């Protein structure tokens, strides 16, 4: 009873900071430990065991899961798919969203309207977008919009999603993501543009810089550096997570075509599909985490993230 009273007094006063800190941060931190740190640790543990259909394994297999994962063509192919996808989607989204921001920023009257139009797809889910792309725009048969429009010019019909040579399915995959993401990054760039002081542009004009390319190169782009770093980081992190559109666009009744399966989709099928091989899936997840950590740290070093503004 007396103890309780003392606790109450400690809580009531503003003086006990450590206790109050944990009253505010504790529930969140605890949840994060339980639902992120514990699964991470469990994943590392499981990856050393043979765990088919079970979460409490008994057979210790050492690094076997890792070696069989790395020897597995399907897994290494998925890593390759991911590299190509990232190399494709990051620069294209970056350029498109920056161009949109630059153009929209210079519009006076229709700025709010255009911003909404380009931002609107961000409200759409990958599932819905994939559905429109797969069953309407890039439908392989004649009623697809792309084939209809190409037909007006006398072009032949293309089976967009099942053609691998040339890899037309990339066009479908990449445009879905561009449509969904460009508007969001455009908003980030617009925010960055608004922070650039107008006096810089006035100074440039006094110095005789031609509006257009020169100003863009010497004033605008350098001023957008922090925004650009953040956008690139977010784009790469999002590319790591690519799952929804691959799952919805490239699946068919026979399962996945082997030519386009990013790691996450592959892991989903390994761990939770027919095999239910949680040990192997965990090993893949750990490998993926290591790769992501290396890339993220390398990227941070490359951009000098955390460095003070020059």
């Amino acid at each position, binding site marked *: 009873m007396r103890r309780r009273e003392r606790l109450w007094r400690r809580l009531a006063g503003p003086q006990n900071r450590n206790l109050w800190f944990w009253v505010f941060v504790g529930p969140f*931190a605890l949840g994060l430990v339980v639902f992120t740190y514990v699964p991470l640790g469990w994943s590392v543990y499981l990856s050393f065991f043979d765990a088919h259909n079970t*979460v409490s394994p008994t057979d210790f297999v050492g690094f076997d899961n890792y070696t069989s994962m790395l020897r597995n063509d399907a897994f290494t192919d998925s890593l390759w798919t991911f590299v190509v996808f990232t190399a494709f989607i990051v620069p294209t989204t970056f350029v498109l969203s920056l161009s949109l921001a630059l153009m929209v920023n210079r519009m006076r009257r229709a700025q709010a309207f255009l911003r909404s139009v380009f931002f*609107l797809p961000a409200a759409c889910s990958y599932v819905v977008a994939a559905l429109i792309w797969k069953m*309407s725009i890039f439908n392989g048969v004649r009623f697809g919009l792309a084939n209809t429009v190409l037909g007006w010019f006398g072009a032949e019909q293309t089976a967009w999603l099942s053609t691998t040579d040339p890899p037309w399915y990339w066009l479908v995959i990449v445009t879905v993501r561009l449509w969904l993401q460009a*508007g969001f990054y455009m908003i980030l760039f617009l925010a960055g543009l608004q922070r650039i002081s107008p006096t810089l542009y006035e100074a440039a004009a006094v110095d005789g810089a031609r509006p257009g390319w020169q100003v863009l190169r010497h004033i605008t782009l350098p001023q957008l550096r922090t925004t650009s770093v953040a956008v690139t980081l977010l784009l790469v992190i999002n590319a790591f997570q690519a799952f929804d559109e691959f799952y919805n666009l490239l699946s068919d009744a026979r399962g996945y075509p082997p030519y386009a399966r990013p790691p996450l989709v592959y892991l989903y099928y390994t761990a939770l599909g027919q095999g239910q091989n949680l040990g192997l899936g965990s090993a893949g997840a750990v490998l993926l*985490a290591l790769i992501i950590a290396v890339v993220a740290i390398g990227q941070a070093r490359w951009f000098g993230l955390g460095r003070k503004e020059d």
Partner: protein
Amino acid sequence: MYDAWVKVGRALRVALLIALALLFLIPFYLLVRNGLASEQDITSPDWTFFPSTLHWSNVRELFEDSTVPMARSLYNSALIAVLTTAGTLLLASLAGYGLARIPYRHADRVFYAILATMMVPAAVTFVPSFVLVSSLGWVSTLRGLIVPTLFSAFACFVFRQYFLGFPRELEDAARVDGLGHWRTYWLVVVPNSRPVFAAVGTIVFIGAWNSFLWPLVIGQDRDAWTVQVALASFTTSQVIRLHVVFIAAAVSIVPLLVVFLFFQRWIVAGVERSGIDE
């Protein structure tokens, strides 16, 4: 001469923007057009911009469809999105406030431990998270769908950045009036921080409504499907009635478009003020 080029440039820019805007709107148009068309109109080789007749009965057909539990999925998604948003706002704002405003020796370490989880994509933890949730017996339950997603490091980060810039005078006034941390938070800080709550809330709501991988993994029973999982079951199934698929997708984005258009300026304000890109 130079002025003429500027004018041409401006005209080109406007033309390009209009073309791009139309390109961005086409998918939405196709969604509605195909959703209200008859199956023959969708699959006709002579594609027309407008369908010959509008079939509003497609909506009824969608909800009477026995293969995909659309009404149930919409209900699940709405419940999940609302509860996730409320829970995330509560937990993340408290944590963000504590990290920003309550001096504690290890506050920075705690903050970095939280931030580090942002670098760990859900991609990597979904296998062990599934293991954890299934060992709790939460597969195909609302708990399993909601609770693990409540601890968003991103939301916590935004709140912390925002509260770091919160005017100290307001808190000092509250302190003088004899309010402790708890009442200062509820009576002074929250009512004065509505924009950031609206911004984070909108982003979390949209994310929860649109999320796919976690509901796919956890919502295994049909009764626990979210609307995204229900839609995906259309695209991956063999027998497809196109008009039903499209009207389902159209219905699924209506609630979100309303939220989105209504709160859009909050998202923009949130991005500009939160320092996401700083």
